[in-house]
């Protein structure tokens, strides 16, 4: 049996209450596959029955696990390609020339999921900007899900995950065999750090300022008020001249008047307007 309509409504409300994300009705199909492992873990073989159990039990820990399972994103290496082309040809060269004396660069993947986005940036830096090897580069990934933070930190991926968008030449160079999986080399893993953080819970904890903030395919899950608060917080964490990247379907317009757009390689970045 699958998840009934009123049960999905319960899940939508639960997810909204805990993470402020709005799960659209079109995500109902996800409930079955995402919740089944949790259901099995407590000996329930039916997701409908599992949702009913969550509803009755008011078990906070279990509710958190459900929210995590329903909000994880599928992630790819070098997702969408164009933003990475823009980073390589425009954004990073600009930052490198402006920060040449400080020799410091910080990049934040704000919904890092299982880590592919941030590791793709680390690989891009290694491949295309060898002159930055003696810079102080800080690469931070944060995610709502503890499980995702742990997975990202491990840097271990299955062959199914390796298939998604990673050029074979980079697999050879930056990964080694780990049983039937692949593990990022220490050179890459040592450059990144992941920690748990809930973007919807504002004000945000103390964070440094970043030269690039990757906030892709996150705002789509939030209501307007939360989107506005997140953009305001992000704006405060952008260094002068820093770049914010949103997902292709996302924009700051109608949410914040403080950003202007910069286009490169078909990708759109946002910068804080100069006054």
């Amino acid at each position, binding site marked *: 049996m699958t998840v009934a309509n009123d049960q999905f409504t319960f899940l939508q409300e639960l997810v909204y209450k805990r993470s402020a994300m709005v799960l659209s009705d079109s995500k109902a199909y996800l409930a079955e596959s995402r919740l089944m492992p949790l259901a099995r873990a407590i000996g329930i073989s039916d997701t409908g029955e599992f949702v009913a159990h969550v509803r009755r039990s008011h078990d906070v820990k279990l509710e958190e696990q459900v929210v995590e399972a329903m909000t994880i994103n599928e992630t790819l290496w070098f997702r969408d390609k164009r933003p990475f082309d823009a980073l390589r040809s425009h954004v990073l060269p600009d930052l490198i020339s402006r920060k040449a004396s400080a020799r410091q660069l910080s990049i934040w993947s704000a919904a890092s999921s299982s880590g592919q986005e941030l590791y793709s940036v680390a690989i891009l830096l290694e491949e295309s900007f060898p002159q930055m090897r003696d810079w102080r580069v800080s690469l931070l990934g944060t995610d709502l899900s503890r499980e995702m933070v742990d997975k990202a930190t491990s840097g271990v991926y299955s062959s199914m995950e390796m298939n998604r968008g990673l050029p074979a030449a980079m*697999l050879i160079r930056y990964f080694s065999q780990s049983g039937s999986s692949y593990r990022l080399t220490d050179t890459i893993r040592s450059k990144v750090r992941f920690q748990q953080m809930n973007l919807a819970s504002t004000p945000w904890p103390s964070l440094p300022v970043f030269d690039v903030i990757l906030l892709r395919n996150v705002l789509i899950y939030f209501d307007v008020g939360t989107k506005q608060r997140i953009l305001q917080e992000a704006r405060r964490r952008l260094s002068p001249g820093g770049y914010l990247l949103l997902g292709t379907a996302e924009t700051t317009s109608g949410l914040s008047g403080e950003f202007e757009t910069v286009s490169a390689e078909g990708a759109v970045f946002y910068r804080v307007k100069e006054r």
Partner: protein
Amino acid sequence: MRVLLVDDSRAMRSIVARILRKIGIFDIDEAADGQEALDRVKAGPVPDLALVDWNMPVMNGLDFVISVRKEGEFRSMTIMMVTTENEHGQIVRALAAGAHEYLIKPFDEEALIDKLAILGFVGNLDEASSEQVHS
């Protein structure tokens, strides 16, 4: 564009062909082993892309890559291995022999399309535009 599917499993060839047709690639030829593939390539027209399994009877996929790369005139042909062989060392060997990309079985439709995008045969990887196909 013209694609040659090299796999001893007819079911696998038909699954891949179905995905290719879905994204607008209709000029598809098939071969059941490396030798048959080599004969096809030599007889022409030379495919733009060959998707090649590793373990096949008569001539395996790696030997096909080695043989076809010996013939200078087929250098324009892009080769991607599509195989259950998933060891790091095997991927190194295939690329050293002249394959451009590597897709590990089992894979899903999106993974194949991602790889074709890396090779420049389909458009940007945006979800919205993954159907764009270069001729």
